[in-house]
């Protein structure tokens, strides 16, 4: 295999020979499995679980290949490879997902081994992106850079990746298993709606530990994760998680796919009984074999050492001058740039949500440009966020204007991170075999309706999330305004929920009323926004706070008054 070093200064886990051999062997295994399938030696029933374990789905138009981006972090070299694959084997674009991965929509089965081989050249793969296993562990897209970070979640996400990839007990779980880690005071990883949500923190002695939430999830039966243990010391991290997974493996239902997630087990068993089972298993497991050795942690942490930052003043005169001279740039900085813990640096979010665009899609030319910009401005590293944007985490404030200028010229300079135009949308019925309704056209119509950057800032923090079916890949349950596409006798309708919250104060939104048509949905969202603006106490009162204060009635009355 022609190995291409993915980037020495980037904050990723750097493969050793064992990792490379393992991924290479998996590619060759799959190559033979594909050959056997095409030759008729494997039936579709036999082959389907194998292809799923390699990230390959059959969707409406073709095969869809989901590439793992571990905890959403990758290098410019890896992104260029994704662009190259998109051009050669797909249709010149890719779709960044809510699990911080990338999907191609037009893949041929016969090309897949070659694609996986090319991915392996840059230490990438499609493992753990499908099937009933522990999926790609997600984390804060600002990890290793955020001013409010306490613990670097990449270290523990990588430990989990290595621990779960070949673990025989976790290959055939009752159902898929999603873990998210946040190590900052603000939860940007939606940890409380994951099968296991982890808050990494430090005790008074400065030691790392974890709060465990279990049984969160969206889909058909949404649940907020329940607090199972306030503090698990770092050395017990693996043992405690293994105890949870063992209890799930033992008691999780396998007779009904809709009741197989751990959220149903926690709900049906009851929190106290579930906790008791986990503690009993934990007591059995705890010991030298499962102790997370500090040397191992230190070894993994070394992969994520900070890049060679320069000593810079906290304030950049160049940045201030550029902001004063260019209002559009100043607006982008105000909306898309976050505080970095290193003086003189900033975190820049590249929105993949242009007004009227397809959320999360990027052309291969855009990927190449972002890779170039990551090399010039962010140590060759970038992140995929669970809200389907790209983040350059370590940009000198002095260089923000140069960065924005190139982004803007390529249609990537939209200033809407965290605002109403920053819509999460699943692929929906335009691509997905499970969907009941289209998500993307509604997202496009809404982002076009709210395109005005001044209006967006005036509205403030307000997330819209759209799912094309009850599986909720678009996270609609936890949106300030959530939209679920449903099929009513062959016609697409949209059910609106309000009051969802993806952060540590997580909440599932409430259904506002009967489902509406696509056109009505756009008007309904505008009506909701107008009611909010008319009722908020001041600009600082967020939508969900106004909603809590005034209740649903004024919103319902406005939308359904004519009914």
């Amino acid at each position, binding site marked *: 295999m022609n190995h291409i070093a993915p980037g020495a200064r980037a904050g990723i886990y750097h493969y050793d020979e064992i990792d490379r051999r393992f991924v290479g062997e998996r590619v060759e295994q799959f190559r033979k499995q594909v050959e056997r*399938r*095409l*030759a*008729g030696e494997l039936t*579709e029933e036999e082959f389907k679980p194998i292809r799923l374990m390699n990230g390959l789905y*059959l*969707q*409406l*138009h*073709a*095969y869809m290949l989901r590439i793992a981006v571990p905890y959403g972090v990758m290098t410019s070299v890896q992104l260029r490879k994704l662009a190259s694959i998109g051009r050669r084997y797909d*249709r010149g674009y890719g779709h960044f997902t809510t699990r911080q991965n990338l999907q191609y929509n*037009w*893949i*041929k*089965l*016969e090309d897949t081994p070659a694609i996986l081989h090319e991915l392996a050249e840059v230490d990438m793969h499609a493992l753990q992106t499908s099937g009933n296993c522990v999926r790609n562990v997600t984390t804060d897209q600002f990890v290793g850079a955020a001013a409010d970070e306490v613990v670097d979640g990449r270290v523990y996400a990588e430990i989990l990746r290595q621990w779960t990839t070949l673990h025989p007990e976790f290959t055939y779980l009752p159902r898929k298993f999603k873990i998210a880690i946040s190590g900052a005071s603000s939860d940007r990883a939606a940890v409380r709606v994951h099968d296991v949500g982890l808050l990494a923190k430090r005790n008074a002695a400065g030691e790392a530990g974890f709060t465990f939430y279990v049984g969160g999830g969206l889909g058909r039966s949404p649940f907020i994760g329940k607090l199972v243990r306030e503090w698990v010391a770092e050395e017990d991290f693996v043992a405690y998680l293994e105890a949870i997974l063992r209890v799930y493996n033992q008691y999780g239902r396998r007779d009904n796919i809709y009741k197989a997630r751990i959220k149903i087990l926690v709900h049906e068993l009851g929190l106290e009984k579930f906790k008791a089972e986990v503690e009993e298993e934990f007591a059995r497991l705890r010991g030298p074999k499962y102790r997370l050795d500090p040397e191992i942690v230190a070894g993994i942490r070394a992969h994520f050492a900070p890049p060679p930052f320069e000593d810079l003043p906290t304030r950049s005169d160049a940045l201030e001058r550029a902001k004063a001279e260019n209002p559009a740039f100043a607006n982008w900085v105000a909306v898309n740039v976050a505080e970095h813990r290193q003086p003189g640096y900033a975190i820049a979010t590249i929105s993949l949500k242009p007004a009227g665009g*397809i959320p999360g899609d990027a052309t291969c030319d855009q990927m190449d440009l972002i890779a170039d910009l990551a090399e010039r401005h962010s140590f060759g590293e970038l992140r995929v966020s669970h809200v389907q944007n790209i983040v350059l985490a370590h940009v000198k404030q002095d260089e923000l204007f140069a960065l924005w200028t190139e982004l803007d010229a390529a249609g990537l300079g939209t200033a809407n991170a965290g605002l109403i135009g920053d819509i999460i949308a699943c692929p929906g*019925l*335009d*691509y997905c075999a499970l*969907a009941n*309704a*289209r998500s*993307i*056209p509604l997202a*496009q119509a809404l982002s076009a309706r709210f395109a005005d950057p001044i209006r967006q800032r005036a509205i403030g923090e307000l997330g819209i999330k759209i799912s094309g079916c009850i599986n909720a890949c678009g996270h609609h349950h936890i949106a300030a305004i959530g939209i679920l596409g449903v*099929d009513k006798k*062959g016609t*697409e309708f949209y059910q609106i929920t309000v009051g969802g919250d993806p952060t540590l104060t997580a909440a599932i939104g409430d259904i506002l009323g009967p489902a509406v048509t696509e056109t009505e949905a756009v008007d309904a969202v505008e009506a909701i926004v107008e009611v909010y603006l008319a009722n908020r106490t001041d600009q600082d009162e967020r939508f969900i706070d106004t909603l809590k204060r005034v209740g649903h009635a004024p919103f319902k009355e406005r939308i359904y008054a004519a009914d």
Partner: protein
Amino acid sequence: MPSQDGSLKAITANRLRDGVVVFLGPDWNAGGEVATAWVESFADAALFPAAEAETALAAAKPRAERAQFGVDIYAFDVETENGVPTPVKMRERIRALGPSVRLDLGKQAAA
């Protein structure tokens, strides 16, 4: 020919080797290579009254599977709009054309 209630069906699959959407064509029962029984354009698809669709599906599906030609093979409803056969469900319209948000992609791009 439509059945007594006028309802029609077409039969579809995804081609195994590349996933491309295909439809059972008018020559589906003429013998020869399995691949020649299937067409890529919905406009060229055979349309069956409901009862005949079941028979055709029962015959064509195992042939396509045995030949490693197609997967996910099923029949779907078709209606006639202004004299033009059209899939009833949005899902099948999108499969027959391509993504409604990318008119440059899918079968609609070649039309």
